């Protein structure tokens, strides 16, 4: 079913002669450009004639999934996007929210899955570069990076190669530009074997009044290409990102884009200086589909036209055709609209930062995207139909029988196990999904800019805002296994966990950016996952009052026909009213009381326990009682604000036992023991390792216990003291009605911190 907006051109398009050497437009060529026959017909309608090869390339890029959102747009419109604090919702380079004190926070997440599968280091590095540019083109200075990563299991040499390359790429780029990494996720499951997920998120800070948009304002204003030169890198990357990976695509892989974080750092400083100078009216990253998308989108947003001359674009290699220049995805480039008469000032500012700025065109009033090569026109397309006219589709969606069977699997046999679980516990603690990720964030500069109050390793990262009492917090969350088994429930869980992570550090959740990583949407069971996930996100974001201000869709994450787990990553930001409220996940003092907020259940479905111990991905994922969850979060936030807590940590993968262990071990510097007694009459495995949502482990001074419990009760949250924090040498001990779990803290420390380094060291790539 196609949605056909009125694409009748408002202005007539002149006829454009083909360039010498252009291939003839054939149905095959059109198909190679990813356009369906009906889409091509639309192109013919818009132009009123046959497109040239160059124009076909332009349509192909702009109407790719990556730029045109053709299979996602309709569903995405169901997401809540408004709130009084939202300054800029979806549609710009990044979302922007008001965070008080005249300050605004710009933030966005973006995927670089396909490039990272082909060349993990450069793919990940350029992913970070792109998201930084999205943020600083809004006029905001980047203050934090998060990275959300997923790979196959680490016993494969290929996976270790991808993992180490991606981490190094994320690190090297952000480190060099000097933006602290404050968090993220790292998840391993065979569901991501051939197709890693690499999502990067960036937060930027600005004065609310300094917001600038990617619009081509002011007819006659010069358009300038700024930053690095254009080379033949990544031509058709946007189309490539919209296709499945096959051996074929590896063979004809496009040139890899190489990142240059040093140039990015200069571009960052120059761009902010440009924006401050008042000499420009618009600025946009040349990201996917390069000059084509930045120029046409800027024109589209302002309702103007643009004219650019390919002969004036600074290129890295001789002999580049307009087609290549238009579609190149060379990194570290920007398109700037200068005020008329300001081109020289722009050049001067860029020159100071040892960068180039070249006038390549101007804003026009005819609503056309016109490309020249010197004197002759090589492309002329109405801007609006190009940027907004991409047909959008709603597809058929049906749950796969196979997955339904897994979801409905009978897990009751696990309720009979009562034996000692100490070994299972240690095995879980050394599962790379639960073990410390310090091997990852130890490669990321987390303290540059001297603002990081909570570093990676806790529930959410926190950056203080100089000159105020406030701080911002951010987290990324999604358990793809949950979403795979039940997309709606799993996605609601991701939103709930993100919000829970934020309240645990003392922040009020305020807004969301999201990265929807899915398989091929033309397959009904994938479209089903996508639709359910979006509906779940919409429901949860409405309830938590965390509007979605932007995001990114990455489809076709498949290798040889097998899709990744559907992975709608939630990037959530929150505001800490007073830095004194900041709470961390580690227990602080021996003798403190440990309190569990929320209820344990007999749920074991979709758990890490089943994956690690039984090699099983099955069962219903834990569901979220949205109202109960909201009560819990208000309660925890209230406790942090009243200074009652010494620690707070949410229960997630690995269940209660692992959450307690994470709090006991902290950063590993001062590990502590615990003495906990659980009186629940629940089967042993779900009690220790079940991943029921809506639970937070907090600790406090014995004198504050009553106050904590009273506050919980006032929010309708079940709460009870379950034990105390013990000295390290007294061990880690949990007594249940039918089981006792006791391990040495030193052993626990070794397992938790040593697991990933051990997997990565003794292991060469293959």
């Amino acid at each position, binding site marked *: 079913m196609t949605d056909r907006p009125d694409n009748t051109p408002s202005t007539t398009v002149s006829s454009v002669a083909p360039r010498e050497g252009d291939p003839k437009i054939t149905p095959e060529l059109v198909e190679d450009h990813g356009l369906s026959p009906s889409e091509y017909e639309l192109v013919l309608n818009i132009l009123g004639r046959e497109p040239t090869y160059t124009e076909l390339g332009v349509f192909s890029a702009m109407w790719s999934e990556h730029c045109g959102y053709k299979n996602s747009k309709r569903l995405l419109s169901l997401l809540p996007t408004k709130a009084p604090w939202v300054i800029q919702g979806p549609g710009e380079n990044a979302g922007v929210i008001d965070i008080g004190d005249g300050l605004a926070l710009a933030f966005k997440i973006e995927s670089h899955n396909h490039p990272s599968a082909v060349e993990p280091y450069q793919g990940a590095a350029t992913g970070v570069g792109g998201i930084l540019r999205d943020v600083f083109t809004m006029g905001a200075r980047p203050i934090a990076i998060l990275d959300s990563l997923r790979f196959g299991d680490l016993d494969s040499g290929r996976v270790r190669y991808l993992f180490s390359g991606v981490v190094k790429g994320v690190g090297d780029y952000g480190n*060099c530009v*000097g933006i602290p990494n404050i968090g993220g996720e790292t998840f391993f499951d065979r569901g991501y074997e051939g197709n890693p997920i690499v999502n990067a998120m960036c937060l930027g800070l600005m004065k609310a009044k300094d917001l600038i948009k990617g619009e081509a304002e002011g007819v006659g204003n010069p358009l300038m290409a700024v930053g690095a030169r254009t080379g033949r890198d990544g031509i058709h990357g946007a189309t490539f990102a919209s296709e499945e990976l096959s051996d074929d695509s590896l063979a004809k892989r496009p040139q890899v884009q190489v990142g240059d974080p040093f140039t990015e750092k*200069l571009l960052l400083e120059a761009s902010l200086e440009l924006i401050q100078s008042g000499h420009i009216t618009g600025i946009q990253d040349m990201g996917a589909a390069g000059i084509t998308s930045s120029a046409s989108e800027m024109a589209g947003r302002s309702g103007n036209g643009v004219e650019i001359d390919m002969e004036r674009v600074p290129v890295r290699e001789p002999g580049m055709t307009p087609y290549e220049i238009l579609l190149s995805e060379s990194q570290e480039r920007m398109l700037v609209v200068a005020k008329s008469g300001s081109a020289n000032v722009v050049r001067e500012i860029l020159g100071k930062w040892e960068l180039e700025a070249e006038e390549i065109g101007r804003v026009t009033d005819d609503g056309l995207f016109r490309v020249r090569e010197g004197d002759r026109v090589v492309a002329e397309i109405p801007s609006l139909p190009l940027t907004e006219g991409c047909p959008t589709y709603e597809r058929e969606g049906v749950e796969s029988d196979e997955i339904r069977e897994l979801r409905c699997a009978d897990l009751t046999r696990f309720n009979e196990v009562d034996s000692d679980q100490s070994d299972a516990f240690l095995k879980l603690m050394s599962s790379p999904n639960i073990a410390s990720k310090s091997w990852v964030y130890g*490669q*990321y500069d987390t303290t540059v800019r001297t603002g990081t109050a909570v570093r990676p390793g806790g529930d959410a990262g926190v950056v203080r805002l100089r000159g105020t009492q406030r701080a911002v917090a951010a987290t990324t969350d999604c358990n793809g296994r949950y979403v795979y088994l039940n997309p709606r429930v799993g996605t609601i869980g991701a939103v709930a966990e993100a919000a829970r992570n934020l309240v645990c550090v003392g922040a009020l959740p305020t807004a969301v950016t999201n990265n929807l990583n899915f398989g091929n949407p033309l397959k009904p069971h994938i479209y089903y996952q996508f639709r359910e996930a979006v509906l779940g996100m919409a429901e949860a974001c409405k309830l938590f009052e965390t509007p979605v201000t932007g995001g990114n869709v990455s489809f076709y994450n498949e290798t040889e026909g097998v899709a990744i787990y559907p992975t709608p990553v939630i990037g959530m930001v929150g505001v800490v009213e007073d830095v004194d409220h900041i709470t961390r996940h580690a227990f602080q003092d021996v003798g403190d009381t440990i309190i569990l907020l929320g209820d344990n259940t007999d749920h074991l479905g979709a758990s890490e326990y089943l994956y690690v111990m039984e090699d099983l991905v099955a069962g219903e994922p834990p569901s979220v009682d949205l109202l109960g969850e909201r009560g819990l979060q208000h309660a925890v936030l209230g406790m942090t604000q009243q200074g009652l807590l010494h620690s707070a940590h949410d229960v997630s993968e690995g269940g209660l036992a692992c959450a307690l262990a994470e709090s006991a071990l902290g950063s590993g510097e001062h590990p502590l023991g615990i003495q906990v007694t659980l009186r629940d009459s629940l089967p042993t495995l779900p009690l220790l390792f079940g991943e029921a949502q809506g639970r937070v482990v907090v600790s406090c001074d014995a004198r504050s216990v009553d106050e904590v419990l009273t506050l919980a009760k006032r929010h309708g949250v079940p709460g009870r003291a379950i034990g105390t924090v013990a000295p390290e040498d007294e061990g880690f001990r949990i007594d249940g009605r039918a089981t006792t779990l006791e391990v040495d803290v030193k052993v626990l420390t070794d397992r938790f911190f040593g697991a990933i380094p051990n997997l990565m060291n003794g292991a060469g790539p293959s």
Partner: protein
Amino acid sequence: MRVAIVTFPGSNCDYDLYKCVQLVGGTPEFRWHRETALGEVDVVMLPGGFSYGDYLRAGAIATMSPIMDAVKEFARSGGPVLGICNGFQMLCECGLLPGALLRNRSLLFSSRDVRLRVENASSVFTQEYQVGQILRMPIAHAEGNFHADGETLDRLEGEGQVLFRYADAEGEVVDSANPNGSARSIAGIVNESGNVMGMMPHPERAVEPILGSVDGLGLFTALLSHFSPLGAA
């Protein structure tokens, strides 16, 4: 105390250092690498970061900048020069300090808190610390593995030019506490005349409780009290 903070394309701890100097009551001023004069200043600081992207060798290309002649002149005339991280790398590259900084032995960028043992508390930079005192502060580098030949190392130790060594929480200089493979666990050194200092860890990131440590403050207050004995701002 007037402090010139020299910035290069790719410096990224310049602003942190600026704020830190302000915090202790000094007066920081940025100097762009293309300038040729430092002006009237008491101290010169070379900040951390990735000057020229760390391409070729960390710190190498920056030493070719016009301002470096002025920095060398300032150092020769006895002015205190402090290089942190990338700044330390530059000081070695341009010969103001002996040795070189090689890639970390892990081959990975390393970002974490380390502990330093104060080895010499009589330098103008470390006079507010005690010998044997344990300081905690972050490192964040990929090329921090201090290297010099045996003779040079002996001389550095003999002359008290080693200011900080990596140590564990108890102050033991053990290999497991050495984050990058530095020869003899050296984390910071001073030149023979005692006025040029370089260190890999970031004292400017350990100056407020919210950052997790205030152990870096002493370095800056030491310089301040040297130049403004009354502690004037």
